[in-house]
Every structure is written in structure tokens, then in C-alpha cells.
């Protein structure tokens, strides 16, 4: 079982690395691991060839024809305009130094007070607009038929990390947690059983996921 799990994990790891093996950006240790695995795994070897072909095809795609000169002139004009100091109005007579300092102090204080008032107004508006909490499982109760993924998240994972993970997989929680900490998920995109298994297998490799599987029974809500 351990050997099987280890082989499956290695296969998934190499499969995920193949695009970067094709573009030559893996380190030496990763390259060696991939080469050793591909000697035994024809799926990965074939996929690597496909990745190399895709890389060549995308590299060969003609460059987009935009003219940089006009764009550069436009940008330089903006830079020059940004750097020109604001025109000054000729003063009749410069006020005494002490008065100038006092005037500057008053201006700074006024700007500070206005900024503080603006910030507090904005913050108050933001607090009113934001809900006090958001739920991860906001899907309406539905009867889900067919295979469903079930996961257990790591104890140390935060709510924000779970939200990020669900966003990455385009999934939402539709049930759970159970006493054992099991959540039932639903992917936004409908998937056949094979694709579902692949997605769950990929999720299993995420360090925030302790356990993930596809169950064959639907989860009535």
C-alpha cells in the first residue's frame, strides 16, 4: 500500500512538473526525478512529448505586431509632463520667515485633519458595507445525486486558506462538518467520474487537505 501510494504520488508530482520540464526551468534534482519516473511510466513519457510539442507550437506563434515607437513617445511625454514643476505665481514680497513657518504649520495641520476625517468617513462606510461574517457554505440546500467529493482539512488551516483553496478548485461546501470533520463539496463545473477523481486526487496533494475522496452515494441536504 505504501509503495503504491508512493508511486501514485510520484506520478502525480511528475505529471504536474512536465510543463516546466519542457521549458527547462526545473532544477537538476527535479529533472532527475522526472527522468527516472518516465523510464517506467509511458503515460508521463507520452505526455512529456505532447508538452514539448505544445511548447514549440506556442514559441513559434508569430509575435503580435504593435509599434513601440509611438507608444514610447506617448509615455515619455507623460513622464516629462509629470516632472515639470507647477508654475509659480510671482509674489509681490516674500513674507517674513517666521510668518512663512507659521503658515506652513497651519496648512500641514489642516491637511492632516481633512485626511483623518476622510479616512474615518471611508472606514465607517466600509464597516457598514461589509457583513460581519461570510459563510463558505452558502449554497442553497439541494439534493445532490451521484458521486460527491468529501474532504477533511488540516487542523491548522485557517478559514481564509480554506476559502482560497475552494476558490482555486471552483468548489463550495454543501454539507459538513460531521463529527469527524468531513465536509462535502460541490464543484461549480459538472465533471464526469474520471475528471472528478482526478480533481480530488489533485486536492489530496494540497498540504491543507488531510483527506479527500469521492463517495458513490449522493448527499441529501
Amino acid at each position, binding site marked *: 500500500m505504501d509503495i503504491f501510494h508512493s508511486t501514485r504520488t510520484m506520478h502525480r508530482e511528475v505529471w504536474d512538473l512536465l510543463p516546466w520540464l519542457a521549458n527547462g526551468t526545473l532544477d537538476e534534482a527535479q529533472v532527475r526525478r522526472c527522468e527516472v519516473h518516465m523510464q517506467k511510466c509511458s503515460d508521463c513519457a507520452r505526455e512529456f512529448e505532447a508538452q514539448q510539442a505544445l511548447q514549440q*507550437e506556442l514559441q513559434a506563434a508569430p509575435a503580435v505586431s504593435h509599434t513601440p515607437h509611438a507608444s514610447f513617445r506617448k509615455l515619455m511625454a507623460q513622464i516629462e509632463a509629470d516632472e515639470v514643476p507647477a508654475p509659480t505665481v510671482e509674489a509681490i514680497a516674500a513674507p517674513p520667515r517666521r510668518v512663512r513657518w507659521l503658515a506652513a504649520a497651519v496648512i500641514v495641520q489642516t491637511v492632516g485633519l481633512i485626511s483623518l476625517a476622510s479616512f474615518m468617513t471611508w472606514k465607517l462606510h466600509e464597516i457598514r458595507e461589509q457583513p460581519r461574517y461570510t459563510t463558505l457554505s452558502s449554497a442553497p440546500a439541494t439534493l445532490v445525486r451521484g458521486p460527491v467529493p468529501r474532504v477533511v482539512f488540516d487542523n491548522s488551516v485557517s478559514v481564509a486558506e480554506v476559502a482560497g483553496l475552494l476558490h482555486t478548485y471552483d468548489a463550495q461546501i454543501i454539507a459538513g462538518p460531521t463529527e469527524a470533520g468531513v465536509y462535502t463539496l460541490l464543484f461549480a463545473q459538472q465533471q464526469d467520474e474520471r475528471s472528478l477523481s482526478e480533481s480530488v486526487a489533485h486536492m489530496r496533494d494540497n498540504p491543507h487537505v488531510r483527506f479527500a475522496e469521492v463517495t458513490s452515494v449522493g448527499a441529501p441536504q
Partner: protein
Amino acid sequence: MTISVLRPKEPQSAADSGTSNERELRLLARVAQQDREAFRELYFIYHRRLSRFITRLTTRHDVIEEVINDTLWTVWKKAGDFRAASQVSTWVLGIAYRQALTSLRRANVHVLLDDPARDHLAAEDVQATDELREWLDEALEQLPLEQRTVIELTYYLGHSCEEIAAIMGCPVNTVKTRMFYARRKLKATLAPQTDRE
């Protein structure tokens, strides 16, 4: 079965001697001193790369030009703040990616369909009626923006997984997941084409 594999480039630090990154670092140091000639050189190096990269995200010429110029304007302003913790290209592309997202939201651009500019480009490029190229372009256009970005940064711009994570401001695992789904969608979309060959 004989498998040819690209070996990693050596050395792999941000300040590779004799590489384009070294040259860009020197240019950036001069840009930080407000050297306009160095900035011009850097601009032309990146205009081509950014044109290609941003065209994968949108084909609206006005948005593309805006993003390129906003990106390089930021480079002009912030050249002195760059600490060489990453490659220059990683830094610049990260700025470009964030600018692109902002510009696309502002321009309310959702889908790359029925754009006359795209048809014009397609007519120019597909002179040899390369069907696979057309299918590939169409398949890429169907991918969500984040997946398209990973594809472009990997295959065309040749960045590592870690560099792409830095550019897109996300964990390495997220980059791998996006690539996983992108590859699967491309396979599904391109399957009818490859079956015909």
C-alpha cells in the same frame, strides 16, 4: 523510448552573469538615475514581451497599450526600489499582470470574442492556414484568464513555477493547479483536432 530533456540553466540566481537579466539589471540601475537612454532600451526590450503576454489576456489595442505604458511608467518610477530579489522580468511581469487585471476591470472586458482586432491578427498570422494554430488560439481563448496567464508565462515566456507564483502573487500550488486544469481543458478542446490527424 529516448526522451530529450532540457537541462536547467546554470547558474540559477537572479544575477546570472552574461545573461539578459544581467543586462536588464544594469539598465535598471541607470534608469534609477533617470537615464532616459537606458529607459528607452529597456522599454523596447519589454514592449515586445509585454505585447505578446497581454494580448493573451485581451486583444483590445487601447487596453494593451495602456497596460504596457502603465507598467513601464511604474518601472521608471520604482527602478530605484528594485532589490534584485528576483529576476527583472519576474518583477516587470508581476507589475504588468496586476496592471492588466486593473485595466480589464476598468474597461469591463470579460470575454475575448468578436473582436475585429483579433480577426485582423488572425488574417495576418494564419497565412499558411495552419489549422492547429487556429485551434490552439481558440482553445486558449476559452481558458479563464488566470489559466491562460500560466500557459503564456510557462510556454512562451519560459518562467519557472516559482517565478510565475511571484508574478501572479499566489502560492506555487495554485500555479500547478491552474496549469493542471488548463492542460485538461486544452486536451478536451484539441482532442477533435488531433483525432483528425
